[in-house]
């Protein structure tokens, strides 16, 4: 070992910390344990924001779904009404046709 190495190793050799060092560390560690856990954190805030977003989007989707069902029902009712009107019209036409036929069949006096 050259003199430089020797001087250096001696200058930078290990030394013990001031007395009571370990006790101070352990006492601070115990304080960390007894510290109340923070309820609000950025993770919680992000999770809450995500939940609100999901609920809002979900409720909008559900409303749209209900509106679509109501629309379908109304459309069916209109179609039924149209069908009924069509069949009544056909009945009227048939009756008219029969009346016409009868008029033709009656001989002139």
């Amino acid at each position, binding site marked *: 070992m050259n003199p*430089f*190495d020797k*001087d*250096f*190793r*001696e*200058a*930078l*050799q*290990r*030394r*013990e*910390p*001031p007395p009571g*060092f*370990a006790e*101070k*560390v*352990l006492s*601070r*560690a115990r304080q*960390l344990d007894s510290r109340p856990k923070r309820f609000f954190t950025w993770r919680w805030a992000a999770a809450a924001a995500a939940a609100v977003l999901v609920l809002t989007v979900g409720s909008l989707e559900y409303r749209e779904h209900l509106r679509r069902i109501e629309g379908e029902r109304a459309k069916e009712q209109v179609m039924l009404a149209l069908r009924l009107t069509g069949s009544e019209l056909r009945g009227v036409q048939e009756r008219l046709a029969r009346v016409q036929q009868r008029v033709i069949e009656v001989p002139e006096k």
Partner: protein
Amino acid sequence: MTTAEFELIVRQQQGMVYSIAYNFFNNVAVAEEVAQDVFLQLYENRRSVESHSHVIAWLRRATTHRCIDVVRHRSFHNEVQLDELPETHDDQPETDPLLQERLRRLVASLPETPRTVLILRYGEDMDAEEISRTLEMPVRTVWSHLQRGIALLKEKASRYLKEESRESIR
């Protein structure tokens, strides 16, 4: 890691952690504060600790990083004033405490990375590969920081000697 195991690690490794910080700053108060913070950081991360050798490597890495952080964020400057260095005496014993104090001050005045490399090499007796793993840098970079650190120390020491000889001529 249980609380009892943590206590054992603090008692076993306090010398290592404190010495790295002390050699880095050459200041008892700052070294103690840094060493305490490192152990508390370990306590908060104790669930991720795998083994005894992992703890030692973790402590070395955390201490060096914390030292560098303190220097960078607190503008902790440790520039050596030549007239602050202790006087030498002719009748020097085998181990010269004044020389050691001078060397420590000179080391503490180096830029952060060469300083860290020198402390791990000579204070912790680590080889270049161990230092490269601890500081997460290539081995060649470790060698270049080591050489740069020693060159800077020689330059500072020769400047000091010149000042001293000029003073003695007057």
